[in-house]
Every structure is written in C-alpha cells, then in structure tokens.
C-alpha cells in the first residue's frame, strides 16, 4: 500500500517536473509535436472518412432490409454466372402464393415485381421515376420506409386492384411543387393512378447513385394490369425480425421452393436466397483493402514522427546531461529520471495529439458535408491513445539513456 502511494507520488512529481521542462522550453516542445500532429490529423481524418463511407453505404442499402431474405432467380453479386441464372425458371406470383401458404414462420412476406424508370405525368408536368414497384401491403413492413403524408395501400387495394400508388419525395416535389399530392391523379404509361401517400425522405444513397426518393410503389395487381410482366421473374421478400431464426427460415424456404419448383433431389437449387449482408461483405472486401492501405500509410507517417520525436528527445537528454547529473547527485533514482523523460515525451505527444484533433475536427465537419458522420468520440479516444503510445515508444530509449548516465561524468559535462 505504502509502495503504491510512493509510486503514485513519484509519477505525479515526474509529470510535474516534465511539465516544468516543457513550459521552460515551449518552442522546442511545439516543434517536437509537429512530428505527431500530421500523423494524428491523417489518422483521425481517415478513420472518420472510412466510418462515414461505411455508414453512407449501409444507409443506401438499408431499404433492402437487414433481416429480409430475398428469393430470386439471381444470386446477388453472382457476377459471371449471370447467363446461367437468366436461363432458370422464373419466380412467379403463383410460387409466391404457395410459399406464403407453406412457410411456417415469418413476420412479413411480399412479392416484388420491378421495372425501370418511366416518365410520370401530372397535368403538364413530368418526372422520371427510378423504379416502379408492384407489391402487396406487407411491403411496408419489409422496407420500413413509411409514408410521411397519406397512407400505404391496403390489402383491399391489392385485392380489388384499385388504381392507387405511393410516390417518393422527389417525384412529389417535381410533380406537385405547390400542391398537396394526395388524391391527385398521375399518369403512368397512359394509365391514371391516384396518389394516396408520399414516402418519407431516404437520402441520396451511396454518393447519389440510386435515387431512393424517386420510386413509385403500386399494388402488384395494378402493376400487372397497366405494366404487365406477369410472366417476368419476381422477387419474394421474407422478413424475419428475430435474427436467430433467419437461418432456420432460410432452410425452410429452400425446402419449400425446391418442392414448388420440382427440383430433383441431389440437384442444386435453381433459385437463390439473398440477404443485404452480401453487399456489406462486398463493401468490406473492396473498401477494406483501401482502408488498410490508408492505415499502413498513416502508421508509417506516425512512425516517422515517432523517430523525429525520439531524435529530439535524445538531443534534449544530451543538452541536459548536467541537469541529470545534478538531479542524480541530490538523490534522484534511476526510475525517477526515466519517468521524467518518459512523461516529457508522452506529454509532448499528447499535446501534439490535441493539436492534431483541433486541426482535424473542422476537417471532419467538411467531410460531414458529403458523408453522414462527424468525428466519432471513439476516434478522439483513438487519437489520444495513439499519441500516448507514440510518446512512450519515442521516449523510452532517450529516457533510458538519461537514467543510465553516470552522475560523476554527467556533472563534469560542459
């Protein structure tokens, strides 16, 4: 207990002594910090950007749904096997009905029929939609994108094929700049559809590649009526809220679909069951490599900075040889001198870290203009931790040199 108290006291004194030395030689301390400032700015800015990119990406694919399984002809990101997938039997509305009937556990199931953008008209205005979706009322639970005015269509709208639709925010803005879109009739491929809801804003997606706010969603029955495509392949989305059950549900879907599509035993599936996860995996694989390269480069800059600081600390030890001799003569033990120089290097690096953060914080606000993140608190902690470690690493050898000096020779040093 007494020993711990003494160690704490020694540490405190060591820190006070080094603070004094830093105060006395402010200019050198500031110049020394430069070694780490650049590295810290690089680390924090890059980490912030990487986190921001990932968040932007997740946001842009979030409409796919975290816990949603998509039964599809195509394997997402299946790439080169595209021809093989295309030749598979279509996934049809009929198969959707059968799957829904047989599947024992799910929270929502919806068919999704999709077509690319068309021109939409209202009076003399027109807008281009990114996608047109035909689905059922259960789609609401799957996409988790809610209408912020009006409503989503109901089971009855689907069953009776009412000519209604829900539109994205951007379409609403383009067609109805000054009026309420609800209950207005728009024209899609020559057919009149009544707008019953406007979806909440979802953002521009990954660097604005897909506009999620210019989609149109209508009952699948209406989709078949006005756009057709009854013979085209669809997706069946199955939502399972309980993460732990997803794998079981996937196995059941696989078995049911094999039966429905009459896949002989021993033959591979002629359909795919996709999840959002594959996009994340792909992202991590590609962006991960870039991130690692960036981390290696910044680590290198920190390493160079550490060498610079070590160099200056060595010079400082030599310059202060006599001071070290005096301290030793009047009773400073080896560890007291070691602690003094180690904490000096560490404090200088922590100051450098703080300066680095002060520079990179406005930078992160700039990044925030493009990506949905400011500097996360973890990055601040990371920066301080790195500064601390760099301080220890660059201070240990000079501090050891100082601690080992022979007092007689140190006192004689001119």
């Amino acid at each position: 207990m007494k020993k711990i108290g003494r160690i704490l006291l020694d540490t405190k004194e060591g820190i006070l002594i080094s603070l004094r030395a830093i105060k006395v030689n402010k200019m050198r301390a500031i110049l020394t910090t430069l070694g780490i400032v650049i590295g810290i700015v690089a680390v924090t800015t890059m980490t912030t950007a990487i986190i921001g990119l990932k968040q932007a990406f997740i946001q842009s694919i979030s409409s796919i749904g975290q816990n949603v399984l998509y039964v599809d002809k195509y394997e997402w990101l299946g790439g080169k096997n595209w021809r093989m997938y295309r030749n598979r039997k279509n996934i049809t509305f009929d198969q959707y009905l059968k799957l829904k009937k047989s599947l024992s556990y799910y929270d929502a199931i919806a068919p999704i029929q999709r077509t690319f953008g068309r021109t939409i008209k209202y009076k003399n205005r027109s807008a281009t939609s990114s996608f047109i979706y035909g689905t059922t009322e259960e789609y609401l639970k799957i996409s988790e994108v809610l209408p912020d005015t009006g409503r989503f269509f109901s089971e009855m709208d689907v069953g009776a094929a009412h000519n209604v639709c829900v539109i994205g925010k951007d379409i609403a803005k383009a067609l109805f700049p000054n009026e309420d879109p609800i209950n207005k009739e728009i024209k899609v491929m020559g057919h009149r559809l009544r707008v019953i809801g406007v979806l909440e804003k979802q953002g521009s997606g990954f660097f604005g590649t897909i506009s999620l706010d210019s989609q149109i969603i209508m009952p699948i029955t209406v989709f078949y009526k006005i756009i057709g495509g009854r013979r085209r392949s669809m997706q069946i989305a199955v939502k399972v809220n309980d993460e732990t059950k997803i794998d079981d549900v996937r196995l059941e879907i696989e078995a049911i679909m094999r039966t429905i599509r009459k896949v002989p035993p021993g033959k591979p599936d002629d359909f795919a069951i996709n999840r959002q996860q594959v996009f994340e995996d792909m992202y991590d694989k590609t962006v991960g490599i870039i991130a690692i390269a960036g981390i290696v480069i910044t680590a290198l800059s920190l390493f160079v900075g550490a060498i610079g600081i070590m160099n200056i600390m060595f010079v400082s030890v030599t310059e202060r040889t006599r001071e070290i001799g005096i301290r030793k003569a009047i009773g400073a033990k080896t560890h007291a001198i070691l602690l003094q120089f180690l904490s000096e290097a560490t404090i200088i690096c922590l100051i450098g870290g703080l300066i680095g953060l002060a520079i990179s914080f406005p930078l992160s606000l700039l990044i925030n203009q493009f990506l949905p993140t400011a500097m996360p608190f973890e990055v601040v902690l990371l920066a301080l931790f790195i500064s601390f470690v760099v301080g220890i690493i660059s201070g240990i050898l000079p501090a050891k040199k100082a601690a080992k000096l022979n007092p007689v020779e140190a006192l004689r040093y001119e």
Partner: protein
Amino acid sequence: MNIITLEHIAKIYEVGAEKVHALRDVSLKIDKGEYVAIMGPSGSGKSTLMNILGCLDTPTKGLYSFKGVNVSEMDDNELAEIRNREIGFVFQTFNLLPRSDALHNVELPLIYAGVPSDVRKKRAEEALLQVGLGDRVHHKPNELSGGQRQRVAIARALVTEPSIILADEPTGNLDTKTGEEIMLLFNEIYEQGNTIILVTHEEYIAEHAERIIRLRDGQIESDEPVQNRYIPDLSAIREKEESE
C-alpha cells in the same frame, strides 16, 4: 560518533590499456561534528575521494562504511538514497537548475525524498531564510550574484538535514570577499553541529577547518588538526571591504 570510515580505499581508472591510480590505499575516519579540509595539488585525487565520500562513485578496492553501513558494494539506487538522505553537496560551479527559481532548486532533494509539496515548500523557504536569501525565493540563478547562487546551493544541501556537507572548492568561482562570506556561512553551519568536508587547493581556505588531510599522488600525505583555526567574522569582512 564515527560517521565515515575508509579502509584501504583504492580507485583505479582504466583509460584504454593504461591504469590510472587516482587513489591508493586511503584510510581515514571522520567523526560527527568535524570540519575537515582535503587539500592537495591538482591531480592528487581530491575529487575522486570526494566522489567516493559522496557516494557518487564506488571504490575499486577497500571498504567504505557510512554510519556503520557498508556502502562500497551498494547499487546505484541504494547510493542515490544515501546521497538524498545523508549527504548535502556544494559544488564549485554551484550546479543549480538554471531555469528554476531558488525555491524550486532547494525543494529538489525533498521531491526525490517523497516529501509532500506543502511541507517541502515550507522547509525550502526556511533553508533559504537560514542562508540569508529570504527575499530571493523566486529569483532564478541568472538573477542572482555568484555568492547568492552558492547560498542557494548551500540551502539545497542543508534542506534535507544531511549527516555530512560535502563542498568541492565552494569558493573557487567567487571573488575573495564573497568567498569569505561563504566561509562565514560554513562556519555558522559547523557551529550548529553539522559535519563538513571541504575540498580546496587554497591553504587559507583550508585553515577555516579544524583538520586538514593532505593528498599527494592518491595517498594521504598528512592528516593533522589545524593549530590556529581561522574563524571568519563579519567585522573583518567589513574592514576589508572598506579598505578596498
């Protein structure tokens, strides 16, 4: 009471293949309350002896016992502790921390002794008061005269209440008058019952002590009490001042 006992102490420096015998077979005893001067020509081994006595260095051969404890085989940290608790150094070149004020310089040994900050400050102020620098507590060395700097150094040596004060040519960098003032201060300290070992090459400085040990070629040439000890007094200093 015996504080220092040296028995057959030798110190050999190896410079390349050559061996320098800085001390050969030095034996001596110093009692508590003694005022001893170590004299000798340049190169005779005074500083080497002083470093060994001050536990800054260890002898190559022989036994050094300090207050009955064998220090000749102690490691660096044990020696540091002895220096901190038992020895007060006064150097020719003062050896103060240049950028710290008088108070911090005097505090320094107490920091390494683990004395809490408030106690430390009080004791350092008292020591400065004792050497006549009560009004110079926050002056830095470059704001003080040579004599005042040496007083700060003496305060630093006294603050831990050590068993011995070791002074290596303490007046070597001072003019005669200031040197005399410092010798007066040493006399006061001696009269308070402290043990002082003074290294000098000047005969009249050595005669302030009550015993002179003369070194030559690393050996004790003579070790005798001073017959007519020179006791400095303020009026004599004043007289000198006026005549100049």
